[in-house]
């Protein structure tokens, strides 16, 4: 067996120590060959003996938090087959042969292509400006009582910039804690894409509501947004931008999305209806559209009255 590698897990990038033949001392004291500053590691915690015949022997030196190999505490342990998992205090390490295969190289965000959205910084700025534009148009479309530029600016600063800024900052801090990196530009790009997607799907759902004279498209969007789209967006970010493993990305996406999704879902009319299935308000289809695209046939007054006779009575609440 050639030289060994001790892979030491950390919150950021792992640390790799090449072990020469002979004795390697691991512990918190400064006279060790490999120093682990974790307080749960003993000053002299472990000796790794790499014998000339390539056999490996681990000797525990710690009285407190003794070394564990494959989850079992040891005094002295001969190692037959690599890799082997070692717990030194709470530090996780792995003893590997030098020729141990590594995972395939992940491409940079945007595959390194110069025009990719996650590549150059100007895309993040362009997308941020697009968000402001979309939000401004939405404000303008709803400013039917009166329109003032100062109100638009206030809206963009108070609503849009703050919302996007808060998400970018919050998620960037989370990312820093998770993978020990700041990726503000990619985060801004991602948040802006999600924001634009939200605006677009909202518009689509409104038009589908009118087209079908139904409430379910916007209801579906509401639930789909919080239960599917937000977790998927976070998952894709963690997988492709942060390069976390797939399973960990799924778990983290669900964890990160849940504080956003749960309150929104609990406050949704559909969820409220589960808790209280009675309403004094008539939930009729009040949407109006200038395009007036709808699938319902136009009926005469007589046909309408005839069809209305078949209307079922209202359902009593529990």
């Amino acid at each position, binding site marked *: 067996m050639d030289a060994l590698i001790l892979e030491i897990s950390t919150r950021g990038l792992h640390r790799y120590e090449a072990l020469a033949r002979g004795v390697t001392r691991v512990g918190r004291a400064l006279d060790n060959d490999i120093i682990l500053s974790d307080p749960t590691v003993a000053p002299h915690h472990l000796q790794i003996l790499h014998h000339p015949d390539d056999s490996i022997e681990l000797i525990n030196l710690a009285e407190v938090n003794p070394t564990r190999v494959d989850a079992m505490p040891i005094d002295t342990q001969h190692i037959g087959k690599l890799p082997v998992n070692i717990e030194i205090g709470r530090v996780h390490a792995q003893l590997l042969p030098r020729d141990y295969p590594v995972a395939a190289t992940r491409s940079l965000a945007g595959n390194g292509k110069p025009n990719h959205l996650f590549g150059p910084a100007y895309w993040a700025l362009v997308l941020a400006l697009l968000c402001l534009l979309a939000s401004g148009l939405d404000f303008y479309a709803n400013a039917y009582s009166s329109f003032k530029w100062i109100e638009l600016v206030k809206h963009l600063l108070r609503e849009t910039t703050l919302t996007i800024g808060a998400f970018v900052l919050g998620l960037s801090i989370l990312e820093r804690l998770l993978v020990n990196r700041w990726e503000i530009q990619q985060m801004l790009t991602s948040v802006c894409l999600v924001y634009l997607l939200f605006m677009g799907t909202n518009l689509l759902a409104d038009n589908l509501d009118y087209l079908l004279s139904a409430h379910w498209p916007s209801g579906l969007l509401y639930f789909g947004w919080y239960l599917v789209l937000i977790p998927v967006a976070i998952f894709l970010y963690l997988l492709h931008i942060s390069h976390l493993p797939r399973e960990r990305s799924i778990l983290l996406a669900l964890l990160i999305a849940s504080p956003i999704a749960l309150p929104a879902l609990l406050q949704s009319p559909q969820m409220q209806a589960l808790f209280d299935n009675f309403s004094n308000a*008539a939930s009729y289809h009040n*949407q109006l559209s200038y395009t007036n695209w709808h699938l319902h046939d136009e009926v005469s007054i007589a046909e309408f009255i005839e069809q209305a006779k078949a209307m079922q009575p209202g359902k009593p609440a529990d």
Partner: protein
Amino acid sequence: MRASLLAISLVLAWAFAAPASALDSREIYQLNEDRVFQVRVLNRETGKKSSIGSGFIVGDGQQLATNYHVISQVIQEPELFYITFVGSDGSEGELSLQGLDVAHDLALLRAEQALGEAIIMSPLPPGGAPIFAMGNPLDLGLSIAVGTNGGILNQTDDSRILFSGSLNPGMSGGPTFDDSGAAIGINVATARNDISFIVPSRFLSDLIEQASGEAYDDSVDMKAEVARQVLAYESRYIEQVLAEDWPSLELRQFKLPGVISPTVRCWDNSSKLSTLVQYKRYQIRCSNQNHVYLDADNQFVGRLIYEYYWLETDTLNPIQFYNLYESLNKDQIDTKPGRDIVTNFNCDTWFVEVSSQQFKSNLCRREYRDYPGMSDMLFTAALTGHADKGFFITLIATGVDFDSSLPLIRKFLESTQWTP
């Protein structure tokens, strides 16, 4: 035949009984203080008053007339409440329900023994004549309120007399006398200071005539009886409204049904035109006044409301205009009965052609859970296809048979005319 005989005998009795000179309030009070009672609804468990009103001796001397709303709790929960009377001399006794006229808010009660001499009833005196309302205001004792006859109100479907005196809680169900000492009506409601309402005595005469000799027995489903009476009244009312020639009113590019019944009053609710506002709106709201008291939760039914709402703009673009238009498309029935009283609404949508224009129309219905066949109906229709103008029609009818309300919608839409 019986009705004619009763009417003739009442008029004769009134003519012979009428003193030669007009009585003043003191004399009317003294003449009737033994014939006007406090009517109490008591809780069987606590023995305490739950509601109070007044009543007076009618018919065979064993009957008391009062308002339906005074004793409606007994109909809601007969196992918990019962009715008693207390006379000015302190005499007390239990009363049973003998007859109801829910539409006119009247109830006929029967005592176990004769209570005294029945009060004579008479037609309404001329407008402006003095009239005197007796009753037990606020549980303080017998009192008399003096006012004048304001005449029968046609907006209440002739079911109310306007009284310029002051009625107070507890006086409901008491008699209102003319200056001969005959009862011309029954105290029923107040609007504000010195604006009060009296039920004309002819409805009470009809009730006395129709009521059988015995009180309702326990086998009668009183809520079903209330529903039957309300629905019969509302169906008759809608038929009358449909039979009328509806005058039209003009609102911008539409000719619309105007005051469709004498019971209806219309008001302009248009917003003031302001330089800040980028659109103009014109709103007309019409409603009837002949509401029917339903139950102790203070539910009134029999409301007929229709509203027109025109919207136009010179400055908004179509997207802005339709955002505004949609935000205003939110009419609801403003009464909020609880889940125990009504069902949820069931709504459906149609695109209906009305006078060559298309309206997105929604029809909703909800049912009264304890009153079989009784529904609330909400109809809204919004004009589609115009970039700079919008128009809503809203029609609301409460406490109606749903099917009988549909011809009303039909006539509304057929009477709506678009002027290009």
